[in-house]
């Protein structure tokens, strides 16, 4: 069993739709949760991070963490064609520079 599970997609939505991306994980020791966006032939780019449970909002993006269910989500409101990319969840145990454990990524396509 993978430590972090993520539906690979592709997920295709029309422009303006609300997008929901999710990851589940098995290790309850994870405390920091991140979402990265990766465009083709580029490296992952940090979108959002959250510590422990709760919500965090940044513009059109909202990250949610439910540690009791070991489930994290990223919501994108008013999706744009420029949001088309692969979205990767990642998590780690503490903020001491330890390694990240990634999900496999979900490919999102936003159609104009």
């Amino acid at each position, binding site marked *: 069993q*993978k430590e*972090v599970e*993520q539906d690979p997609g592709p997920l295709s939505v029309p422009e303006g739709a609300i997008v929901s991306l999710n990851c589940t994980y098995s290790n309850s020791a994870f405390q*920091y949760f*991140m979402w*990265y966006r990766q465009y083709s*032939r*580029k*490296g*992952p*780019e*940090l979108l959002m*991070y959250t510590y422990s449970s709760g919500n965090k909002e940044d513009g059109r993006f909202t990250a949610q963490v439910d540690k009791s269910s070991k489930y994290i989500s990223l919501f994108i409101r008013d999706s744009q064609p420029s949001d088309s990319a692969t979205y*990767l969840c990642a998590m*780690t145990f*503490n*903020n*001491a*520079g*330890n*390694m*990240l*454990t*990634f*999900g*496999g*990524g979900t490919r999102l396509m936003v159609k104009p």
Partner: protein
Amino acid sequence: EAGVTQFPSHSVIEKGQTVTLRCDPISGHDNLYWYRRVMGKEIKFLLHFVKESKQDESGMPNNRFLAERTGGTYSTLKVQPAELEDSGVYFCASSQMGASYGYTFGSGTRLTVV
């Protein structure tokens, strides 16, 4: 500020040859990481430098892989001899101390072993 630079961007080598990947982190970032994504799999951790010291190399797959970080600046990852299963995209990332969430990734080196 300049980002994390990796080169070459793409390398095609024959099985049994040697390849050296280079990473230049963001200036002032003490943490430097190597990750790898093989086809169809998730991005996986290889190793972590703090300045010039190896902090964690638990992800290195075998002794054909050798990583160095000269003077705490740039890093190299050498694969010798390369095998077919080494094909994938190798990412380097850097961050300041105490910032697990502050990684900046490079664009990666796409390694193809034929």
